[in-house]
């Protein structure tokens, strides 16, 4: 229970950061999806069950700030968490490029599925332009953030394991 509460608190913190990041960096055109990054990292490390729960919770939190309690982010984030979890246990933790790559692909899938489920974008959107101008830069941005986050997580974990200060 304590673990779930802690992780939900982290998700709330990430949501607040995601909502207010434009205040810190007004020139920022792309809003990184910190919740997605967190969920995908958890998916590749801890597996599907864990990631899908936090994917659903993160999606719900995000939906509250867009439409209502249940919106599109809940199913989309849960599905992406499940897909990302397919990588779980299939790479060495020392391979620092796998989590960023997973987040890069997850962002592309996440945004495309979201657009396809969104009624007013489905037939009106120019997907090629959106992929080129928004989705790919956003995926790269998310992957870059993931690289540094995973780097910190990795060295933090190693320090704990070795028992050195």
């Amino acid at each position, binding site marked *: 229970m304590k673990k779930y509460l802690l992780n939900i608190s982290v998700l709330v913190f990430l949501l607040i950061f995601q909502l207010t990041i434009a205040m810190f960096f007004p020139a920022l055109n792309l809003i990184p999806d910190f919740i997605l990054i967190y969920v995908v990292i958890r998916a590749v490390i801890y597996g599907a069950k864990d990631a899908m729960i936090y994917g659903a919770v993160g999606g719900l939190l995000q939906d509250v700030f867009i439409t*209502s309690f*249940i919106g599109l982010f809940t199913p989309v984030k849960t599905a992406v968490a499940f897909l990302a979890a397919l990588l779980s246990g299939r790479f060495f933790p020392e391979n620092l490029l796998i989590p960023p790559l997973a987040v890069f692909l997850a962002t592309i899938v996440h945004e495309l599925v979201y657009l396809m489920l969104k009624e007013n974008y489905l037939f009106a959107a120019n997907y090629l332009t959106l992929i080129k101008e928004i989705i790919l830069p956003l995926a790269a941005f998310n992957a870059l953030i993931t690289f540094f986050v995973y780097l910190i997580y990795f060295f933090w974990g190693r320090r704990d394991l070795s028992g050195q200060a």
Partner: protein
Amino acid sequence: MFNINSDTLIAAALIILIVLFFTFLYFTGIDLPIFNWLSDLIYNIITPVLNLVHQFVESIQNFFNTLFSIDEVNQEIKDLKQKNSILERQILFLENINRENERLRRLLDFKEKVDYQMIGAEVIANSPSIWEKTITINRGSRDGLEKRMPVISYQGYLVGRIENTGLSSAQVRLITDHDFVVGGIIARTDSREIGLVKGSGRDDQPNIMDNIAWDADIESGDIILTSGLSNNFPAGLKIGEVANVETDNYGLSQKANINLLMHQITLEEVMVIKNFNHKNNIQNNELENEAEINDNEESENNDGNAESENI
């Protein structure tokens, strides 16, 4: 290829079922009170934190701004004092004009222009998604805000409409959002063409005004205002400026790209129009139209009489 144990599969299936149930509710539009209550609860718990973060960031910004620009601040105080004295004189002058205006209006029996009751609000958060153009403001149902109320900037530019309200905060759907549609009218004395202004879904692209008549007199540089034909927005709010016009629907209509005036400012503070009453507006318009029709009929009758007299 992938080794997923049975526990994980069962848990995944359960989660998928729950999420599918939620998704079904979303697409069918079924409104369950418990979910609305939960949504409000989460929203009302998180937004005070956003308020605190906003105040914290603002106080830090103010502190450093003051610290690094003390000379500029002193100079600004001097300038402002000067401006203040000039403005005080102007206010006295305008008060006289206002009194005269009221007196003349009474003399001519003009209808009083409605002053909308407005409330100022600060932007405390942006959208959590790149596809949804929304902001969160620090006023909510406690301050009398309701869904669909128009939101404008301090310069009078249309910003959006209230989408959702919490106790002390509200979400505003911006005019740039893909879901946003508002009736627009050209603000030119010799052209009052109307159309629908739709959000592009992107900040770096202009909005689109379509459904403009094929022979409408519209050109780049025209200012677009809200038409007031829908019951959501009062007439006369500034939307943007026409960038370029092109034919649409194989020449059956025209569409124009609209550069939003809202993009000229940084959206930190907004105003919500609280007491906009569309019925009154329509009644006023109808009365004015009736008066115009009566005038026209009278003038036609007079012309007719004059003609018959001539005959």
